[in-house]
């Protein structure tokens, strides 16, 4: 514990309080003790340390993403401390316990146990679904709320743990949209699917396969690699022999980038599509000009389209450099935890856990509300394409528009209705050349729908 810039007498008081709190208040399954609230407020505001565990791979092939997550959490913690929150009459100081799970499920549970033993007030993470799922049982047993900013495998929240939350759309939502996008927008008739056999990659690839088949595509072949591989020549050669229109990869950027490059080397000219794990600047860096024109998806809407998103991006970049991937989501996860504590007026996991589920927080990645399972409500998915060596926003699909913008939605509905009417009128007015005119009318209608969607987005932004 660090108590910098606090007079020594106060320090002693605060330390004693914090110690009392930490030992008595956390991790117990007993009924909620209004421990903090009961503490009388002396003239000098007491200080409580809230310890948040953060877990991500800080070593190994995904260390760059792990550090990015940690930076996101650290920035949130610094901002919360600068804000000087008071919860239950005590000044709250957040402290981040950053742990390394090496993206390894075994290590994930070891680290989780360590955090449980340290009686942390909450856990942010882990990064990978493969580590988050086994760890979630330990946190659930200890009654510690866990909010992941990046674990997207649906199983994480389907286990029935009331401590498990995530602030990102899950793989069912994402895979469904990606499958439809591949077949409809990218006109892929045959697809080849590769995944890295991690809980995330496999889960996303399975959902993609289901959606693509449902949309009418044929799966030419299904290939596999690992999350530590660098050579994909063998599987890509096999894929090349099946001549697919599109290659989908379920996995992270460290494999996705080189895979796109090796596709080009082998003369495999299919389009390349990947999920959030590959949606990073690193992907372009590693794949070079082979990534030009390729696609990826990311849950939520682009940062610059969110209220406060651009601000967050600027501040983060100034402090830690380029955002890799999940930092904004993890930042939101920490804020959601703090927000729940504030509303519960307690930092006791047993008390504020109930409030996490009732969250309605305007984050930088989405308006965050949880469903009964702990999944993000109405998660939309945005698609990006590489243009001139940069990810460029294409469109946002699926999900309900952010909650809290219901009027905007109503407006949009009206607009859509009008558009439909316009379409109908256009068709009517067409007379003999009905067919062609109708087609144009549909186009006009579609334009109107698009405008309506724009209006929705603008309204959401205003909110």
């Amino acid at each position: 514990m660090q108590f910098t810039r606090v007079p020594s007498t106060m320090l002693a008081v605060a330390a004693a309080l914090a110690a009392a709190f930490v030992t008595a208040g956390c991790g117990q399954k007993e009924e909620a003790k209004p421990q903090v609230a009961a503490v009388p407020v002396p003239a000098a505001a007491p200080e409580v340390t809230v310890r948040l565990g953060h877990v991500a791979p800080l070593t190994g092939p995904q260390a760059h993403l792990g550090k990015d997550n940690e930076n996101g959490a650290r920035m949130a913690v610094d901002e919360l401390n600068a804000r000087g929150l008071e919860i239950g009459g005590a000044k709250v100081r957040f402290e981040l316990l950053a742990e390394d799970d090496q993206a390894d499920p075994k290590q994930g549970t070891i680290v989780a146990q360590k955090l449980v033993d340290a009686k942390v007030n909450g856990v942010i993470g882990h990064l990978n679904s493969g580590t988050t799922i086994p760890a979630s049982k330990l946190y659930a047993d200890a009654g510690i709320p866990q909010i992941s900013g990046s674990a997207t495998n649906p199983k994480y929240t389907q286990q029935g743990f009331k401590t498990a939350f995530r602030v990102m759309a899950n793989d069912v939502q994402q895979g469904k949209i990606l499958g439809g996008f591949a077949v409809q927008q990218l006109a892929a008739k045959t697809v080849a699917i590769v995944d890295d056999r991690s809980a995330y990659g496999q889960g996303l690839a399975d959902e993609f396969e289901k959606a693509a088949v449902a949309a009418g595509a044929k799966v030419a072949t299904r290939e596999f690699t690992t999350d530590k591989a660098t050579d994909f020549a063998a599987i890509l050669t096999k894929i090349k022999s099946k001549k697919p229109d599109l290659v989908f990869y379920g996995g992270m950027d460290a494999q996705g980038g080189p895979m796109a490059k090796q596709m080009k080397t082998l003369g495999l000219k299919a389009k390349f599509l990947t999920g959030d794990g590959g949606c990073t600047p690193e992907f372009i860096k590693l794949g070079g000009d082979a990534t030009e024109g390729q696609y990826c998806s990311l849950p939520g809407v682009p940062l610059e389209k969110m209220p406060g998103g651009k601000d967050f991006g600027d501040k983060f970049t100034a402090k830690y450099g380029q955002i890799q991937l999940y930092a904004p989501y993890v930042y939101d996860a920490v804020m959601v935890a703090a927000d729940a504590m504030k509303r519960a007026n307690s930092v006791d996991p047993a008390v504020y856990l109930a409030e996490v589920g009732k969250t309605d927080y305007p984050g930088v990645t989405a308006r965050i509300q949880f469903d009964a399972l702990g999944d993000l409500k109405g998660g939309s998915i945005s698609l990006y394409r590489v243009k001139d060596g940069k990810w460029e926003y294409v469109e946002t699909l699926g999900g309900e528009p952010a909650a809290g913008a219901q009027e905007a939605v109503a407006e949009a509905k009206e607009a859509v209705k009008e558009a439909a009417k316009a379409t109908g009128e256009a068709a009517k007015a067409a007379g003999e050349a009905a067919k062609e005119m109708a087609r144009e009318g549909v186009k006009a209608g579609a334009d109107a729908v698009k405008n309506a969607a724009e209006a929705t987005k603008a309204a959401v932004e205003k909110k």
Partner: protein
Amino acid sequence: MDILLQQIINGLVLGSIYALVALGYTMVYGIMGLINFAHGEVVMIGALVALAVIRLLADSGLPGVVVALVGLGAAAPVCMAVGFTIERVAYRPLRRAPRLAPLITAIGVSIVLQNLAMLIWGRNYHAFPPILPTSQHEVFGATITSLQVAIVLIAALMMGGLMLLVQRTRLGRAMRATAENPAIAQLMGVDINRIISLTFVIGSALAAVAGLMVSANYSIAHYYMGFILGLKAFTAAVLGGIGKLGGAMLGGILLGLIESLGAGYIGDLTGGFLGSHYQDVFAFFVLICVLVFRPSGLVGEKAAERA
């Protein structure tokens, strides 16, 4: 047919890299009977040093091949120094210790080097700038790039050169003598400390070449890249017969081919029951089979004659 040929080319490129790294394992094992698990990290250091220099010079207007050679010129001495230091610090004090002790320090050195590299070069992946010609050639329907041709040729050249060095020179004779029996070699006037140091230095120079090849071929370098590569190369060395130079080459090429063909055909052969992620399983299955019937590897003989 063109697919089979393509898979064989894939395997040869991969195998050449494995073979070059495997030589480093096998030389040290041949002379000292020690498995230098830090060798993979030396490859990684070579790749990262070369890349750092290449990135400095990438925009200098020099031809790509020259820039790559300058990068190698910087990486090789660094790797040699690292190899020399590893031997002096981690292995020489333990030369008379039980065989397990240097194995543990080897793993320790590997972790230290990895973390050192992480501190110096960060956790991010480093991309190899596109300075080398990537022209593609069609050979009977299969595609091969000039870079891949260069990798196979350079690897073959290095291996041939090493063979000559060991078989035809005074230094090579001293190395073989040390491998045969260090005590007697010393009595015959061989400075075995010098020979062992030189073995590490030569192996590390090969590692620098391999590091540059890996990062150029996959356009990727990362502080963690040495671990898997080292493990694979060690497997290749054991497959061929650890301690024998020819064994490392044969083992490396074979492992590359097995992985490539395994990943390409295992799914079809088993009717989709086993997927391409079983390529490593396939490789290790072959390794086990070889070791059951030839415990000292494909070309290995009884421990009497090494290096």
